[in-house]
């Protein structure tokens, strides 16, 4: 059987994405209705905007699924340069825009966007392209690993200056994951951890109280009104959900106990309303999505496609893991949205565009004859 020139996109992935998107819109509505009514006198405000973002994002995804991913590779350097410009532009007064002491957005007229979201995608495309070209040279420390670490470090610094520790952290993890996937020697990667070791020993032996303070996230009740507040509220939401949940729309924690429940802590509301069954289903859907992404990577027609799919999948997966870990008080609170579920335009647009790229790679998988 001759290999088909053009395959179909991965419909299983597409459907999974749509299910998650639907859950997201429903939960954003449920979580925001009350506060939205009180603040804007309109229960549907977040539903409407999230619906609009979803439509725009679906269009973006469909467009990206039509653009041959190899074309993206050609512009990889261009994307990196643009992303640097955008990240620096945040610090230009009048352009940068932020809230709660963190400058994370650029505003041009009514439009806002988060340059770091673009930066992440730019980095993934660039690394995939570059590592694919490097082939076996990736196994050399200086040529294969150091340049990417330097590139990553520049991104890391620019983003941490905003400050946005969780985003910087994700970029670091993605970088290492892609280097690992591309075949870098494991110890070439582990070696970067060496400078951390003495610091760690120092902390444990000399200033263990600092470590304890960092570990204090495990006991949010030590400071229930300030640092522990969100963690406690998240636990109470999840806990009151039990096995089956209070039922869709019946969350009580969304009534200002969890501030901005439609954002980072939306998974708590899912747990409260839909119970362990609903929450673990959402977890499973994400794992399923990751599996589809990895599957696309494994069957990608070339090294670039493989690394690109791996990078995109890791990006989504890491964000999910961090978000759920925060919500379940398994790590200190940090602001990471839950992809496809949390409200927010830029994040959804970029996640969906990246999924569009994944779909395009899947379209290029050649079904080999047997």
């Amino acid at each position, binding site marked *: 059987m001759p290999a088909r020139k053009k395959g179909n996109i991965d419909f299983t992935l597409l459907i999974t994405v749509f299910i998650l998107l639907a859950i997201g819109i429903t939960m954003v509505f449920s979580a925001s209705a*009350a506060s939205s009514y009180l603040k804007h006198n309109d229960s549907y405000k977040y539903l409407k905007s999230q619906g609009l973002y979803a439509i725009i994002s679906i269009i973006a995804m469909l467009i990206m699924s039509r653009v041959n991913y190899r074309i993206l590779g050609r512009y990889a350097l261009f994307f990196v340069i643009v992303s640097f410009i955008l990240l620096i532009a945040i610090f230009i007064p009048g352009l940068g825009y932020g809230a709660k002491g963190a400058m994370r957005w650029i505003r041009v007229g009514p439009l806002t966007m988060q340059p770091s979201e673009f930066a992440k995608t730019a980095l993934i495309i660039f690394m995939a392209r570059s590592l694919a070209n490097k082939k076996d040279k990736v196994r050399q420390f200086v040529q294969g690993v150091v340049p990417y670490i330097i590139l990553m470090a520049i991104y890391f610094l620019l983003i941490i200056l905003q400050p946005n520790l969780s985003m910087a952290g994700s970029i670091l993890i993605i970088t290492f*994951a892609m280097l*690992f*996937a*591309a*075949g870098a020697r494991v110890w070439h990667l582990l070696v970067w951890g060496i400078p951390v070791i003495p610091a760690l020993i120092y902390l444990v032996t000399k200033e263990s109280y600092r470590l304890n303070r960092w570990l204090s996230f495990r006991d949010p009740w030590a400071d229930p*009104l*300030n640092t522990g507040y969100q963690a406690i509220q998240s*636990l*109470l*939401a*999840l*806990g*009151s*959900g*039990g*096995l089956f949940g209070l039922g869709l729309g019946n969350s*009580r*924690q969304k*009534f*200002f*106990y969890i501030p901005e429940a439609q954002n980072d802590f939306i998974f708590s509301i899912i*747990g409260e309303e839909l*119970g*362990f069954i609903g*929450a*673990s289903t959402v*977890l*499973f859907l*994400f*794992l399923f999505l*990751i*599996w589809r992404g*990895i599957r696309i*990577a*494994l*069957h*990608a*027609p*070339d*090294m670039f496609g*493989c690394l690109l799919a*791996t990078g995109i*999948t*890791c990006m989504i*997966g890491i964000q999910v*893991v961090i978000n*759920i*870990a925060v919500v*379940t*008080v*398994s790590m200190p609170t940090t602001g990471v949205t839950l992809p496809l579920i949390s409200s927010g335009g830029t994040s959804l647009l970029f996640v969906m565009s990246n999924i569009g790229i994944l779909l395009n790679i899947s379209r290029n998988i050649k079904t080999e004859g047997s």
Partner: protein
Amino acid sequence: MAGVAKKIKRRVLFLLASFTLLFFLLTVRLFQIQIVNGAEYQQKAIEQWTRDVPIPSKRGIIYDRNGKELATNAPAYEIYVRPVEVTDKESVAQTLSEVLKMDKETLMNKVSANKDTVIIKKKVDSDTVKILREKNIKGLIFVDDSKRFYPQSNFASYVLGFTNYDNQGQDGVEATFEKYLNGFPGRDIKMTDAQGRELPESDRKYYEPQDGLNLILTIDEVIQHFAEKAVENALVENKAKRVTAIVMEPKTGDILAMAIKPDYDNNNPREVPEDLIDQWDSMSSTEQYNALFKIWRNPAISDTYEPGSTFKTITAAAGLEEGVVKPDDKFYCSGSVVVAGRRLKCWRSYNPHGSESFAEGVQNSCNPVFIEVAQRLGKEKFYKYIQAFGFGSPTNIKLLGEASGIVRNVNSIGPVELANISFGQGITVTPIQLITAVSAIVNDGYLMEPRIAKKLVDNEGNTVHEFQPRVVRQVISKETSATMRQILESVVTEGSGGGAYIPGYKVGGKTGTAQKAENGRYVPGKYVSSFVGFAPANDPKVVVLVVIDEPGGASYYGGVIATPVVKSIISDTLRYLDVKPQYTEEEAKKLAKEKVTVPEIRNMKLKDAIKLLEQNKLKYRLEEEQGEPEQDSLVLDQTPRANAKVNEGTVVIIYAKPKE
């Protein structure tokens, strides 16, 4: 090209495996939170969502026995602030600090707190709230509340007591009848959002509060006024440390008045005492509280003192009841008596009473007579009466902090101690114990439990509970009681209690002057002067005890300084109670006689003073409890005082300086 190298695929698969592991761990964690610990978190969540707001109940009103309000409720407000709504924190804090007289720093913290609502102040009166309302400050919330209000401020302070900021009784009847006065607060239970707004489907439960019961005291507001006035005057005139007066109705044990000066303002019990204002801020909070507790302590029931001669009433009653002595029995006072090798002197050893009847012995307050009576009784029998009259144990009056006094163990006392107790030394009592015992003596022997509260009524005026007068026991017979009344009346008509004589009323009583003991030693110059009186003597309506603690004026004799106070209270009270004066023939004659003015004899030599009195057609009697005067001794005090208008032939009691 065959796609991707095997090695790369293995690496990618490793990444998938890692994710799978992480997701598995997160699912386990989720299971732990939602299923294993779910119930615990749910409980906490329910507590968080549930607002259980107590609805305060209206506190019962306290009335006197005739329905006059002694403690009531005034409208007041609790002021809260919502910090988010306060834009100009600085100026709001400034305004509040001026109007509420609070520290600006504290207020600044409150208006900028990171909380939904913060309490600013409780129990703010309506005038202050009006001022704040007119200023239209955004973010301030005024919540209705009530504040305990005592219409007459420093009035019956120790009986009434006061309440704390939560309207809970802290002292006096406010504390002892707390459970009736307080009522049952209602509750408003509902589910709310984080800002306290009620949630939809909140399952609201509302329980009406139940108002407290109104308390009717045995206190008579008018008699209390008489007592307060008399005590206040006595405090100033005698430069005393403290003056206590109790008025009791002997038949019921009802406390008609209990007045103590100095006292405190019930509306402001935590006011800094004047003498401590300067050092107040440098005192620790324990020291501050101890100072306040000292002020709140009710001396009428908490302070013990050596009763001195007033205790002779007990010795006399016991002796008569046991039949070891009769009113006409003859005694001989040689000025002193030797007990177990110790010479115990009569107070008038310089001029021994000589031969006298028992009744005269009481009139004269002659120590050897009482020593003799106590010896005839023996310590066991004497103790039986001391205990039966209630000494050494609380009277169970419904007020806080009653003391028992010290009655030494019967087995540990010898003849000297027994003799001392017979005239009121070596034993301590509380004022309430003494008046209760004396009431029993004049009330046919029935010892009543002192009653402070008459009944509890609801808002419609229905009686819910009546506190009945309670007979504790009968200590002496009716006959003995009658005899005691006669003898004690003669103390006023013939003896040391003359200062309490009121024409037209038969007044009985007994004086007492005792040196204060501190750390087991008598302190020179510190006395407790007292008088316990009752009237009318044939059918007592009131018993009045006045105790003057550490008088600092010219005189410290109970007969001089305490009798006029009792006299003033008794005469005011009997007229108020509409007890008609019944003049004896002699009194009627005296009334018809010409009035003479009592001359000033103080600081005169005794012999000159006597001459002057005789010139003024006045009789005299020499009284001295602390030592013997001579003809040249200076007159320290007199009763009645100079310039009093009295009948011819009235006895003027002279107190002279004892021989050095």
